[in-house]
Protein backbone atom coordinates (compact mmCIF):
# COMPACT_ATOMS: atom_id res chain seq x y z
CA UNK A 1 0.00 0.00 0.00
CA UNK A 2 2.73 2.42 0.85
CA UNK A 3 5.98 1.35 -0.68
CA UNK A 4 8.35 4.24 -1.07
CA UNK A 5 10.09 5.02 -4.32
CA UNK A 6 13.41 3.97 -2.83
CA UNK A 7 12.10 0.53 -1.99
CA UNK A 8 10.70 -0.08 -5.45
CA UNK A 9 13.95 1.00 -6.98
CA UNK A 10 15.96 -1.10 -4.55
CA UNK A 11 13.81 -4.14 -5.23
CA UNK A 12 14.05 -3.80 -9.01
CA UNK A 13 16.72 -5.77 -10.83
CA UNK A 14 19.70 -3.68 -11.87
CA UNK A 15 18.78 -3.83 -15.54
CA UNK A 16 15.34 -2.37 -14.98
CA UNK A 17 16.69 0.15 -12.54
CA UNK A 18 18.98 1.53 -15.21
CA UNK A 19 15.99 2.31 -17.41
CA UNK A 20 14.18 4.33 -14.74
CA UNK A 21 14.86 7.96 -15.62
CA UNK A 22 16.50 10.00 -12.92
CA UNK A 23 13.69 12.60 -12.86
CA UNK A 24 11.20 10.04 -11.53
CA UNK A 25 12.00 11.13 -7.96
CA UNK A 26 9.23 12.18 -5.62
CA UNK A 27 10.06 15.86 -5.91
CA UNK A 28 10.18 15.71 -9.67
CA UNK A 29 6.77 14.08 -9.82
CA UNK A 30 5.42 16.63 -7.37
CA UNK A 31 6.54 19.38 -9.70
CA UNK A 32 4.19 18.03 -12.39
CA UNK A 33 1.14 18.51 -10.18
CA UNK A 34 0.18 21.96 -11.40
CA UNK A 35 -2.87 22.53 -9.18
CA UNK A 36 -0.89 21.36 -6.17
CA UNK A 37 1.96 23.74 -6.96
CA UNK A 38 -0.47 26.63 -7.37
CA UNK A 39 -1.96 25.72 -3.99
CA UNK A 40 1.49 25.62 -2.46
CA UNK A 41 2.17 29.06 -3.92
CA UNK A 42 -1.02 30.55 -2.45
CA UNK A 43 -0.19 29.05 0.94
CA UNK A 44 3.37 30.38 0.82
CA UNK A 45 2.06 33.89 0.09
CA UNK A 46 -0.47 33.57 2.93
CA UNK A 47 2.23 32.36 5.31
CA UNK A 48 4.49 35.29 4.37
CA UNK A 49 1.61 37.74 4.83
CA UNK A 50 0.81 36.20 8.20
CA UNK A 51 4.42 36.36 9.38
CA UNK A 52 4.91 39.93 8.19
CA UNK A 53 1.37 41.07 9.03
CA UNK A 54 2.37 44.15 11.06
CA UNK A 55 4.68 45.28 8.23
CA UNK A 56 2.41 44.57 5.25
CA UNK A 57 -0.99 45.63 6.48
CA UNK A 58 -1.68 49.29 5.70
CA UNK A 59 -3.53 49.99 8.96
CA UNK A 60 -3.59 48.82 12.56
CA UNK A 61 -6.21 45.99 12.54
CA UNK A 62 -7.56 47.20 15.90
CA UNK A 63 -7.52 50.96 15.25
CA UNK A 64 -11.07 52.31 15.42
CA UNK A 65 -12.36 55.47 13.80
CA UNK A 66 -16.11 55.99 13.91
CA UNK A 67 -15.89 58.56 11.12
CA UNK A 68 -14.69 55.79 8.76
CA UNK A 69 -17.59 53.42 9.54
CA UNK A 70 -18.74 51.15 6.64
CA UNK A 71 -16.61 52.67 3.87
CA UNK A 72 -16.99 50.60 0.68
CA UNK A 73 -13.82 49.14 -0.88
CA UNK A 74 -11.52 51.90 -2.20
CA UNK A 75 -7.83 52.52 -2.75
CA UNK A 76 -7.38 53.53 0.89
CA UNK A 77 -9.35 50.51 2.17
CA UNK A 78 -9.19 47.78 -0.50
CA UNK A 79 -11.71 45.56 1.36
CA UNK A 80 -13.71 48.44 2.89
CA UNK A 81 -14.14 49.19 6.60
CA UNK A 82 -16.24 47.59 9.34
CA UNK A 83 -18.67 48.84 12.00
CA UNK A 84 -15.86 50.47 14.01
CA UNK A 85 -14.19 51.96 10.95
CA UNK A 86 -11.39 49.36 11.08
CA UNK A 87 -9.64 48.44 7.83
CA UNK A 88 -10.98 45.01 6.76
CA UNK A 89 -7.96 44.38 4.50
CA UNK A 90 -5.59 44.69 7.45
CA UNK A 91 -7.85 42.51 9.55
CA UNK A 92 -7.98 39.79 6.89
CA UNK A 93 -4.17 39.77 6.72
CA UNK A 94 -3.91 39.47 10.49
CA UNK A 95 -6.64 36.81 10.43
CA UNK A 96 -4.32 34.58 8.40
CA UNK A 97 -2.17 34.26 11.54
CA UNK A 98 -4.75 32.50 13.70
CA UNK A 99 -5.98 30.41 10.78
CA UNK A 100 -2.57 29.09 9.71
CA UNK A 101 -1.46 28.65 13.31
CA UNK A 102 -4.55 26.53 14.02
CA UNK A 103 -3.79 24.39 10.99
CA UNK A 104 -0.22 23.80 12.18
CA UNK A 105 -1.06 23.22 15.85
CA UNK A 106 -3.91 20.84 15.01
CA UNK A 107 -1.69 18.74 12.73
CA UNK A 108 0.98 18.66 15.43
CA UNK A 109 -1.41 17.53 18.18
CA UNK A 110 -3.20 15.01 15.98
CA UNK A 111 0.02 13.45 14.66
CA UNK A 112 1.84 13.40 18.01
CA UNK A 113 -1.08 11.63 19.71
CA UNK A 114 -2.66 9.70 16.85
CA UNK A 115 0.44 8.18 15.25
CA UNK A 116 1.83 6.49 18.42
CA UNK A 117 -1.69 5.34 19.29
CA UNK A 118 -2.11 3.71 15.88
CA UNK A 119 1.40 2.20 15.94
CA UNK A 120 0.89 0.65 19.38
CA UNK A 121 -2.59 -0.61 18.54
CA UNK A 122 -1.62 -2.08 15.19
CA UNK A 123 1.59 -3.60 16.49
CA UNK A 124 0.37 -5.23 19.70
CA UNK A 125 -3.34 -5.71 18.99
CA UNK A 126 -5.38 -7.28 21.77
CA UNK A 127 -8.65 -6.27 23.35
CA UNK A 128 -7.46 -2.83 24.45
CA UNK A 129 -6.71 -2.09 20.80
CA UNK A 130 -10.08 -3.49 19.71
CA UNK A 131 -12.06 -1.36 22.15
CA UNK A 132 -9.98 1.78 21.50
CA UNK A 133 -10.40 1.44 17.75
CA UNK A 134 -14.15 0.90 18.00
CA UNK A 135 -14.36 4.05 20.08
CA UNK A 136 -12.17 6.00 17.65
CA UNK A 137 -14.36 4.76 14.78
CA UNK A 138 -17.26 6.21 16.60
CA UNK A 139 -15.52 9.54 17.20
CA UNK A 140 -14.66 9.60 13.50
CA UNK A 141 -18.32 9.19 12.64
CA UNK A 142 -19.55 11.96 14.95
CA UNK A 143 -19.25 15.29 13.13
CA UNK A 144 -15.99 17.03 14.09
CA UNK A 145 -17.69 20.37 14.67
CA UNK A 146 -19.98 18.86 17.33
CA UNK A 147 -17.06 17.19 19.11
CA UNK A 148 -15.09 20.42 19.01
CA UNK A 149 -18.10 22.32 20.40
CA UNK A 150 -18.40 19.91 23.31
CA UNK A 151 -14.68 20.25 24.08
CA UNK A 152 -15.12 24.05 24.02
CA UNK A 153 -18.09 23.64 26.37
CA UNK A 154 -15.72 22.03 28.85
CA UNK A 155 -12.66 24.25 28.32
CA UNK A 156 -14.45 27.54 27.61
CA UNK A 157 -14.33 29.64 24.42
CA UNK A 158 -11.15 31.25 23.09
CA UNK A 159 -8.46 31.03 20.40
CA UNK A 160 -6.19 28.67 22.26
CA UNK A 161 -8.95 26.32 23.38
CA UNK A 162 -10.35 26.25 19.83
CA UNK A 163 -6.92 25.15 18.53
CA UNK A 164 -6.75 22.47 21.20
CA UNK A 165 -10.27 21.22 20.41
CA UNK A 166 -9.59 21.11 16.68
CA UNK A 167 -6.37 19.20 17.35
CA UNK A 168 -8.09 16.66 19.59
CA UNK A 169 -10.89 15.94 17.13
CA UNK A 170 -8.26 15.27 14.43
CA UNK A 171 -6.58 12.50 16.46
CA UNK A 172 -8.84 9.55 15.46
CA UNK A 173 -8.14 9.90 11.73
CA UNK A 174 -4.37 9.73 12.32
CA UNK A 175 -4.67 6.79 14.72
CA UNK A 176 -6.89 4.86 12.31
CA UNK A 177 -4.64 5.47 9.32
CA UNK A 178 -1.43 4.60 11.19
CA UNK A 179 -2.98 1.45 12.59
CA UNK A 180 -4.11 0.26 9.16
CA UNK A 181 -0.62 0.80 7.70
CA UNK A 182 1.01 -0.88 10.69
CA UNK A 183 -1.23 -3.93 10.37
CA UNK A 184 -0.32 -4.46 6.74
CA UNK A 185 3.37 -3.57 7.12
CA UNK A 186 4.17 -5.68 10.18
CA UNK A 187 3.74 -8.92 8.22
CA UNK A 188 5.92 -7.74 5.33
CA UNK A 189 9.21 -9.47 4.76
CA UNK A 190 11.48 -6.52 5.44
CA UNK A 191 9.83 -6.03 8.85
CA UNK A 192 10.02 -9.75 9.66
CA UNK A 193 13.66 -9.71 8.62
CA UNK A 194 14.41 -6.75 10.87
CA UNK A 195 12.60 -8.50 13.70
CA UNK A 196 14.70 -11.60 13.11
CA UNK A 197 17.79 -9.48 13.76
CA UNK A 198 16.56 -9.29 17.33
CA UNK A 199 15.60 -5.60 17.56
CA UNK A 200 12.91 -4.60 20.05
CA UNK A 201 9.37 -3.37 19.36
CA UNK A 202 10.21 0.38 19.69
CA UNK A 203 12.79 0.13 16.91
CA UNK A 204 10.46 -1.93 14.75
CA UNK A 205 7.59 0.50 15.22
CA UNK A 206 9.36 3.83 14.88
CA UNK A 207 12.37 3.04 12.68
CA UNK A 208 11.10 0.24 10.44
CA UNK A 209 7.32 0.57 10.10
CA UNK A 210 6.72 4.30 10.54
CA UNK A 211 9.03 5.51 7.73
CA UNK A 212 7.24 3.18 5.33
CA UNK A 213 3.85 4.48 6.42
CA UNK A 214 4.82 8.11 5.94
CA UNK A 215 3.26 8.65 2.49
CA UNK A 216 -0.42 8.42 3.47
CA UNK A 217 0.37 10.25 6.73
CA UNK A 218 1.77 13.18 4.76
CA UNK A 219 -1.46 13.38 2.77
CA UNK A 220 -3.45 13.17 5.98
CA UNK A 221 -1.48 16.12 7.37
CA UNK A 222 -2.50 18.34 4.47
CA UNK A 223 -6.14 17.22 4.74
CA UNK A 224 -6.11 17.76 8.51
CA UNK A 225 -4.69 21.26 8.14
CA UNK A 226 -7.51 22.18 5.74
CA UNK A 227 -10.18 20.71 7.99
CA UNK A 228 -8.62 22.42 11.03
CA UNK A 229 -8.73 25.83 9.37
CA UNK A 230 -12.38 25.30 8.40
CA UNK A 231 -13.23 24.16 11.92
CA UNK A 232 -11.48 27.09 13.59
CA UNK A 233 -13.34 29.51 11.32
CA UNK A 234 -16.62 27.71 12.05
CA UNK A 235 -16.03 27.83 15.82
CA UNK A 236 -15.13 31.52 15.67
CA UNK A 237 -18.20 32.10 13.50
CA UNK A 238 -20.33 30.52 16.23
CA UNK A 239 -18.67 32.71 18.85
CA UNK A 240 -16.76 29.82 20.43
CA UNK A 241 -13.27 30.48 19.06
CA UNK A 242 -11.32 33.70 18.60
CA UNK A 243 -13.21 36.52 20.26
CA UNK A 244 -13.54 40.13 19.16
CA UNK A 245 -11.70 42.45 18.80
CA UNK A 246 -8.96 40.01 17.70
CA UNK A 247 -9.19 39.49 13.94
CA UNK A 248 -10.11 36.01 12.73
CA UNK A 249 -11.84 35.14 9.47
CA UNK A 250 -14.65 33.25 11.17
CA UNK A 251 -15.46 35.90 13.78
CA UNK A 252 -15.31 38.65 11.12
CA UNK A 253 -17.99 36.82 9.12
CA UNK A 254 -20.01 36.38 12.31
CA UNK A 255 -20.05 40.13 12.96
CA UNK A 256 -20.33 40.93 9.27
CA UNK A 257 -23.55 39.02 8.82
CA UNK A 258 -25.36 41.48 11.13
CA UNK A 259 -24.35 44.35 8.82
CA UNK A 260 -24.98 42.80 5.40
CA UNK A 261 -27.48 45.59 4.64
CA UNK A 262 -25.03 48.42 5.19
CA UNK A 263 -21.80 46.64 4.22
CA UNK A 264 -22.13 43.61 1.88
CA UNK A 265 -18.33 43.58 1.41
CA UNK A 266 -17.97 42.76 5.12
CA UNK A 267 -19.44 39.30 4.46
CA UNK A 268 -17.37 38.76 1.33
CA UNK A 269 -13.61 39.15 1.83
CA UNK A 270 -12.98 37.02 4.94
CA UNK A 271 -14.92 34.22 3.21
CA UNK A 272 -12.77 34.48 0.09
CA UNK A 273 -9.70 34.18 2.32
CA UNK A 274 -10.91 30.98 4.03
CA UNK A 275 -12.11 29.37 0.82
CA UNK A 276 -8.86 30.20 -0.99
CA UNK A 277 -6.75 28.78 1.81
CA UNK A 278 -8.80 25.58 2.05
CA UNK A 279 -8.92 25.06 -1.73
CA UNK A 280 -5.12 25.46 -1.84
CA UNK A 281 -4.56 22.95 0.94
CA UNK A 282 -6.94 20.48 -0.71
CA UNK A 283 -5.06 20.85 -3.99
CA UNK A 284 -1.78 20.19 -2.17
CA UNK A 285 -3.34 17.12 -0.53
CA UNK A 286 -4.50 15.80 -3.91
CA UNK A 287 -1.05 16.35 -5.41
CA UNK A 288 0.64 14.58 -2.51
CA UNK A 289 -1.89 11.78 -2.86
CA UNK A 290 -1.02 11.37 -6.53
CA UNK A 291 2.71 11.31 -5.75
CA UNK A 292 3.24 9.42 -2.49
CA UNK A 293 -0.09 8.12 -1.25
CA UNK A 294 -1.80 4.87 -2.01
CA UNK A 295 -5.49 4.12 -2.13
CA UNK A 296 -8.10 6.81 -1.91
CA UNK A 297 -7.65 10.23 -0.40
CA UNK A 298 -8.50 10.32 3.30
CA UNK A 299 -11.77 12.08 3.89
CA UNK A 300 -12.06 15.43 5.53
CA UNK A 301 -14.89 16.85 7.58
CA UNK A 302 -17.56 19.39 7.00
CA UNK A 303 -17.76 22.78 8.59
Amino acid at each position, binding site marked *: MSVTEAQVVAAAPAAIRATVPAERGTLARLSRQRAGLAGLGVLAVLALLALAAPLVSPRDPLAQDRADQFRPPSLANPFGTDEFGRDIFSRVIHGARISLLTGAVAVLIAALVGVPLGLLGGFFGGWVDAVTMRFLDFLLAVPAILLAM*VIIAVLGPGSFNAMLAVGVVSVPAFARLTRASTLSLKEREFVLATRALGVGPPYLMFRTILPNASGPLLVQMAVTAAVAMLLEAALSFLGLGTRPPDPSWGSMLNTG*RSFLHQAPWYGLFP*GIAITGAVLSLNAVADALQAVVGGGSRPSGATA
Partner: protein
Amino acid sequence: MGKYVALRLVQLLPVLLLASIAVWLMIYLIPGDPAIAMLGPDVTAEQLARARERMGLDRPLPVQYALWLGRVVQGDLGVSYVGSVPVRTMLAQRIPVTLQLTIAALLVALAIAAPLGIMAAIRPRSWIGRLVGVYSALAMAVPTFWLGILLVLLFGLQLQWLPTSGFVPIWEDPGRALRLLILPALTLSAYVSAVLARFTRAALLETISQDYVRTARAKGLRERAVVGAHALRNALIPIVTVVGLQFGAFMGGAVITEAIFDYPGLGRMLLQAILQRDYTVIQGTMLFVVLSFALINLLTDLLYAYLDPRIRYS
Protein backbone atom coordinates in the same frame (compact mmCIF):
# COMPACT_ATOMS: atom_id res chain seq x y z
CA MET B 1 -28.38 -12.59 8.51
CA GLY B 2 -29.73 -13.06 12.05
CA LYS B 3 -26.25 -13.92 13.31
CA TYR B 4 -24.77 -10.87 11.63
CA VAL B 5 -27.40 -8.57 13.19
CA ALA B 6 -26.72 -10.06 16.63
CA LEU B 7 -22.98 -9.59 16.20
CA ARG B 8 -23.35 -5.96 15.18
CA LEU B 9 -25.68 -5.28 18.11
CA VAL B 10 -23.22 -6.79 20.57
CA GLN B 11 -20.41 -4.70 19.07
CA LEU B 12 -22.56 -1.60 19.48
CA LEU B 13 -23.00 -1.97 23.24
CA PRO B 14 -19.44 -1.19 24.42
CA VAL B 15 -19.33 1.79 22.08
CA LEU B 16 -22.57 3.22 23.45
CA LEU B 17 -21.36 2.58 26.98
CA LEU B 18 -18.08 4.40 26.33
CA ALA B 19 -19.91 7.25 24.63
CA SER B 20 -22.31 7.58 27.56
CA ILE B 21 -19.39 7.65 30.00
CA ALA B 22 -17.73 10.36 27.91
CA VAL B 23 -20.91 12.45 27.83
CA TRP B 24 -21.43 11.98 31.56
CA LEU B 25 -17.81 12.70 32.47
CA MET B 26 -17.98 16.01 30.62
CA ILE B 27 -19.58 17.67 33.61
CA TYR B 28 -16.71 16.54 35.85
CA LEU B 29 -14.04 17.74 33.48
CA ILE B 30 -15.20 21.33 33.77
CA PRO B 31 -12.77 23.18 36.00
CA GLY B 32 -14.48 23.70 39.35
CA ASP B 33 -17.45 22.20 41.11
CA PRO B 34 -20.49 21.12 39.02
CA ALA B 35 -22.74 22.43 41.79
CA ILE B 36 -21.10 25.86 41.53
CA ALA B 37 -21.30 25.61 37.75
CA MET B 38 -25.03 25.07 38.14
CA LEU B 39 -25.79 27.60 40.89
CA GLY B 40 -23.33 30.31 39.90
CA PRO B 41 -20.53 31.72 42.06
CA ASP B 42 -22.74 33.60 44.56
CA VAL B 43 -23.96 30.76 46.81
CA THR B 44 -23.71 30.11 50.53
CA ALA B 45 -21.87 27.05 51.82
CA GLU B 46 -25.17 25.61 53.03
CA GLN B 47 -26.90 25.97 49.65
CA LEU B 48 -23.87 24.36 48.04
CA ALA B 49 -23.90 21.39 50.41
CA ARG B 50 -27.61 20.85 49.81
CA ALA B 51 -27.21 21.07 46.04
CA ARG B 52 -24.29 18.63 46.17
CA GLU B 53 -26.39 16.18 48.13
CA ARG B 54 -29.38 16.58 45.82
CA MET B 55 -27.20 16.07 42.74
CA GLY B 56 -25.62 13.02 44.38
CA LEU B 57 -22.16 14.58 44.19
CA ASP B 58 -21.25 13.23 47.64
CA ARG B 59 -21.38 9.62 46.43
CA PRO B 60 -18.53 7.65 44.79
CA LEU B 61 -18.14 8.29 41.04
CA PRO B 62 -19.15 4.80 39.75
CA VAL B 63 -22.34 4.99 41.86
CA GLN B 64 -23.10 8.45 40.44
CA TYR B 65 -22.64 7.14 36.90
CA ALA B 66 -24.84 4.09 37.51
CA LEU B 67 -27.61 6.26 38.99
CA TRP B 68 -27.36 8.71 36.07
CA LEU B 69 -27.41 5.94 33.48
CA GLY B 70 -30.41 4.36 35.19
CA ARG B 71 -32.33 7.64 34.88
CA VAL B 72 -31.24 8.16 31.26
CA VAL B 73 -32.38 4.69 30.25
CA GLN B 74 -35.81 5.53 31.67
CA GLY B 75 -35.86 8.68 29.54
CA ASP B 76 -35.05 11.15 32.32
CA LEU B 77 -32.39 13.50 30.95
CA GLY B 78 -32.56 16.00 33.77
CA VAL B 79 -33.69 19.63 33.84
CA SER B 80 -32.15 22.63 32.08
CA TYR B 81 -30.08 24.78 34.49
CA VAL B 82 -31.18 27.93 32.71
CA GLY B 83 -34.84 27.43 31.80
CA SER B 84 -35.86 24.84 34.45
CA VAL B 85 -37.56 22.85 31.65
CA PRO B 86 -37.03 19.06 31.38
CA VAL B 87 -34.38 18.39 28.72
CA ARG B 88 -36.59 15.69 27.24
CA THR B 89 -39.34 18.24 26.54
CA MET B 90 -36.82 20.62 24.93
CA LEU B 91 -35.51 17.84 22.70
CA ALA B 92 -39.03 16.80 21.70
CA GLN B 93 -39.72 20.38 20.58
CA ARG B 94 -36.51 20.84 18.61
CA ILE B 95 -36.06 17.47 16.90
CA PRO B 96 -38.96 17.84 14.39
CA VAL B 97 -37.73 21.35 13.50
CA THR B 98 -34.25 20.12 12.60
CA LEU B 99 -35.70 17.05 10.91
CA GLN B 100 -37.72 19.29 8.58
CA LEU B 101 -34.54 21.15 7.58
CA THR B 102 -32.49 17.97 7.21
CA ILE B 103 -35.02 16.19 5.01
CA ALA B 104 -35.36 19.26 2.78
CA ALA B 105 -31.56 19.46 2.50
CA LEU B 106 -31.30 15.76 1.67
CA LEU B 107 -33.85 16.14 -1.14
CA VAL B 108 -31.98 19.16 -2.53
CA ALA B 109 -28.67 17.28 -2.31
CA LEU B 110 -30.10 14.30 -4.20
CA ALA B 111 -31.67 16.57 -6.82
CA ILE B 112 -28.27 18.16 -7.47
CA ALA B 113 -26.06 15.09 -7.10
CA ALA B 114 -28.00 12.44 -9.03
CA PRO B 115 -28.13 14.17 -12.46
CA LEU B 116 -24.58 15.54 -12.10
CA GLY B 117 -23.13 12.19 -11.06
CA ILE B 118 -24.98 10.18 -13.70
CA MET B 119 -24.16 12.56 -16.55
CA ALA B 120 -20.52 12.68 -15.50
CA ALA B 121 -20.31 8.88 -15.48
CA ILE B 122 -21.97 8.46 -18.89
CA ARG B 123 -19.85 11.15 -20.53
CA PRO B 124 -16.65 11.30 -18.45
CA ARG B 125 -14.71 13.46 -20.88
CA SER B 126 -17.50 15.98 -21.62
CA TRP B 127 -17.82 19.44 -20.05
CA ILE B 128 -20.28 18.06 -17.51
CA GLY B 129 -17.73 15.49 -16.43
CA ARG B 130 -15.33 18.30 -15.65
CA LEU B 131 -18.08 20.37 -14.06
CA VAL B 132 -18.63 17.70 -11.41
CA GLY B 133 -14.95 17.86 -10.46
CA VAL B 134 -14.99 21.64 -10.18
CA TYR B 135 -18.34 21.67 -8.37
CA SER B 136 -17.30 19.14 -5.75
CA ALA B 137 -13.91 20.77 -5.16
CA LEU B 138 -15.64 24.13 -4.62
CA ALA B 139 -18.55 22.79 -2.56
CA MET B 140 -16.11 20.99 -0.26
CA ALA B 141 -13.89 24.04 0.26
CA VAL B 142 -16.52 26.77 0.65
CA PRO B 143 -17.39 26.88 4.35
CA THR B 144 -21.08 26.35 5.12
CA PHE B 145 -21.32 29.63 7.00
CA TRP B 146 -19.90 31.65 4.12
CA LEU B 147 -22.15 29.97 1.57
CA GLY B 148 -25.12 30.86 3.79
CA ILE B 149 -24.01 34.50 3.93
CA LEU B 150 -23.56 34.62 0.14
CA LEU B 151 -27.05 33.20 -0.42
CA VAL B 152 -28.53 35.73 2.00
CA LEU B 153 -26.67 38.54 0.20
CA LEU B 154 -27.85 37.42 -3.24
CA PHE B 155 -31.38 36.06 -2.81
CA GLY B 156 -32.37 37.84 0.40
CA LEU B 157 -30.90 41.33 0.10
CA GLN B 158 -29.97 41.90 -3.56
CA LEU B 159 -32.85 40.19 -5.39
CA GLN B 160 -35.23 40.11 -2.39
CA TRP B 161 -36.75 36.85 -3.59
CA LEU B 162 -36.67 34.87 -0.38
CA PRO B 163 -36.95 35.42 3.38
CA THR B 164 -33.66 34.98 5.24
CA SER B 165 -34.84 33.86 8.66
CA GLY B 166 -37.68 32.13 10.44
CA PHE B 167 -39.42 28.80 10.70
CA VAL B 168 -42.96 27.49 10.10
CA PRO B 169 -43.94 23.82 10.50
CA ILE B 170 -44.56 22.34 7.06
CA TRP B 171 -48.01 21.01 8.08
CA GLU B 172 -49.22 24.45 9.19
CA ASP B 173 -48.41 26.55 6.14
CA PRO B 174 -46.66 24.49 3.44
CA GLY B 175 -46.15 27.42 1.05
CA ARG B 176 -44.51 29.71 3.57
CA ALA B 177 -42.58 26.82 5.14
CA LEU B 178 -41.08 25.94 1.76
CA ARG B 179 -40.10 29.55 1.04
CA LEU B 180 -38.39 29.71 4.43
CA LEU B 181 -36.67 26.38 3.83
CA ILE B 182 -35.08 27.08 0.43
CA LEU B 183 -32.02 29.06 1.52
CA PRO B 184 -31.16 27.00 4.63
CA ALA B 185 -31.69 23.74 2.72
CA LEU B 186 -29.44 24.91 -0.13
CA THR B 187 -26.77 25.94 2.39
CA LEU B 188 -26.90 22.68 4.28
CA SER B 189 -27.02 20.50 1.17
CA ALA B 190 -23.95 21.90 -0.64
CA TYR B 191 -21.30 19.75 1.00
CA VAL B 192 -23.36 16.56 0.96
CA SER B 193 -24.39 17.08 -2.67
CA ALA B 194 -20.70 17.26 -3.64
CA VAL B 195 -19.93 14.03 -1.79
CA LEU B 196 -22.93 12.28 -3.34
CA ALA B 197 -22.19 13.53 -6.88
CA ARG B 198 -18.61 12.28 -6.66
CA PHE B 199 -19.73 8.99 -5.23
CA THR B 200 -22.54 8.44 -7.74
CA ARG B 201 -20.10 9.08 -10.57
CA ALA B 202 -17.57 6.61 -9.17
CA ALA B 203 -20.14 3.90 -8.42
CA LEU B 204 -21.74 4.19 -11.85
CA LEU B 205 -18.38 4.25 -13.65
CA GLU B 206 -17.56 0.98 -11.94
CA THR B 207 -20.79 -0.82 -12.87
CA ILE B 208 -20.66 0.51 -16.43
CA SER B 209 -17.40 -1.37 -16.98
CA GLN B 210 -18.87 -4.69 -15.76
CA ASP B 211 -19.41 -7.71 -18.01
CA TYR B 212 -23.20 -7.74 -17.61
CA VAL B 213 -23.38 -4.19 -18.94
CA ARG B 214 -21.30 -5.22 -21.94
CA THR B 215 -23.67 -8.15 -22.43
CA ALA B 216 -26.68 -5.85 -22.25
CA ARG B 217 -25.12 -3.61 -24.89
CA ALA B 218 -24.16 -6.63 -27.02
CA LYS B 219 -27.71 -7.92 -27.13
CA GLY B 220 -28.74 -4.59 -28.62
CA LEU B 221 -30.43 -2.74 -25.76
CA ARG B 222 -30.73 1.00 -26.15
CA GLU B 223 -28.19 2.99 -24.14
CA ARG B 224 -30.94 4.42 -21.92
CA ALA B 225 -32.02 0.89 -20.92
CA VAL B 226 -28.43 -0.25 -20.42
CA VAL B 227 -27.63 2.60 -18.05
CA GLY B 228 -31.01 2.80 -16.33
CA ALA B 229 -31.92 -0.85 -15.86
CA HIS B 230 -28.50 -2.44 -15.50
CA ALA B 231 -25.73 -0.06 -14.53
CA LEU B 232 -27.60 2.45 -12.36
CA ARG B 233 -29.59 -0.19 -10.55
CA ASN B 234 -26.48 -1.98 -9.36
CA ALA B 235 -24.72 1.29 -8.56
CA LEU B 236 -27.62 2.26 -6.31
CA ILE B 237 -26.58 -0.21 -3.59
CA PRO B 238 -23.47 1.68 -2.51
CA ILE B 239 -25.14 5.04 -3.16
CA VAL B 240 -28.02 4.31 -0.78
CA THR B 241 -25.62 3.41 1.99
CA VAL B 242 -23.52 6.53 1.46
CA VAL B 243 -26.66 8.62 1.85
CA GLY B 244 -27.12 7.02 5.27
CA LEU B 245 -23.59 7.96 6.26
CA GLN B 246 -24.20 11.65 5.49
CA PHE B 247 -26.27 12.04 8.65
CA GLY B 248 -23.16 13.23 10.47
CA ALA B 249 -22.42 15.93 7.93
CA PHE B 250 -26.01 17.09 8.21
CA MET B 251 -25.91 17.27 12.02
CA GLY B 252 -22.67 19.25 11.97
CA GLY B 253 -23.89 21.54 9.20
CA ALA B 254 -27.24 22.08 10.94
CA VAL B 255 -25.54 23.82 13.88
CA ILE B 256 -24.05 26.40 11.53
CA THR B 257 -26.98 26.68 9.13
CA GLU B 258 -29.41 27.23 11.99
CA ALA B 259 -27.17 29.95 13.38
CA ILE B 260 -27.13 31.83 10.05
CA PHE B 261 -30.87 31.66 9.39
CA ASP B 262 -32.14 32.02 12.99
CA TYR B 263 -33.68 28.60 12.62
CA PRO B 264 -34.96 27.30 15.98
CA GLY B 265 -33.67 23.70 15.77
CA LEU B 266 -31.46 21.32 17.70
CA GLY B 267 -28.26 23.04 16.57
CA ARG B 268 -29.34 26.44 17.91
CA MET B 269 -30.33 24.81 21.17
CA LEU B 270 -26.91 23.15 21.51
CA LEU B 271 -25.06 26.37 20.67
CA GLN B 272 -27.09 28.38 23.19
CA ALA B 273 -26.56 25.70 25.82
CA ILE B 274 -22.80 25.83 25.25
CA LEU B 275 -22.69 29.63 25.42
CA GLN B 276 -24.78 29.57 28.63
CA ARG B 277 -22.95 26.54 30.09
CA ASP B 278 -26.24 24.69 30.42
CA TYR B 279 -24.66 21.28 30.91
CA THR B 280 -27.72 19.05 31.24
CA VAL B 281 -28.96 20.35 27.88
CA ILE B 282 -25.53 19.76 26.30
CA GLN B 283 -25.46 16.23 27.74
CA GLY B 284 -28.99 15.45 26.58
CA THR B 285 -28.42 16.78 23.06
CA MET B 286 -25.13 14.95 22.66
CA LEU B 287 -26.66 11.72 23.95
CA PHE B 288 -29.44 12.04 21.39
CA VAL B 289 -26.98 12.77 18.56
CA VAL B 290 -24.68 9.91 19.56
CA LEU B 291 -27.52 7.43 19.88
CA SER B 292 -29.22 8.33 16.60
CA PHE B 293 -25.82 8.26 14.99
CA ALA B 294 -25.06 4.76 16.21
CA LEU B 295 -28.49 3.55 15.12
CA ILE B 296 -28.24 5.08 11.64
CA ASN B 297 -24.76 3.63 11.16
CA LEU B 298 -26.04 0.25 12.28
CA LEU B 299 -29.04 0.41 9.93
CA THR B 300 -26.77 1.44 7.06
CA ASP B 301 -24.44 -1.48 7.75
CA LEU B 302 -27.35 -3.91 7.96
CA LEU B 303 -28.89 -2.55 4.77
CA TYR B 304 -25.58 -2.97 3.00
CA ALA B 305 -25.16 -6.51 4.30
CA TYR B 306 -28.70 -7.31 3.24
CA LEU B 307 -28.11 -5.99 -0.26
CA ASP B 308 -24.65 -7.49 -0.64
CA PRO B 309 -24.35 -10.94 1.01
CA ARG B 310 -20.55 -10.96 0.63
CA ILE B 311 -20.29 -8.58 3.61
CA ARG B 312 -21.99 -10.74 6.20
CA TYR B 313 -19.93 -13.82 5.40
CA SER B 314 -16.51 -12.20 5.42
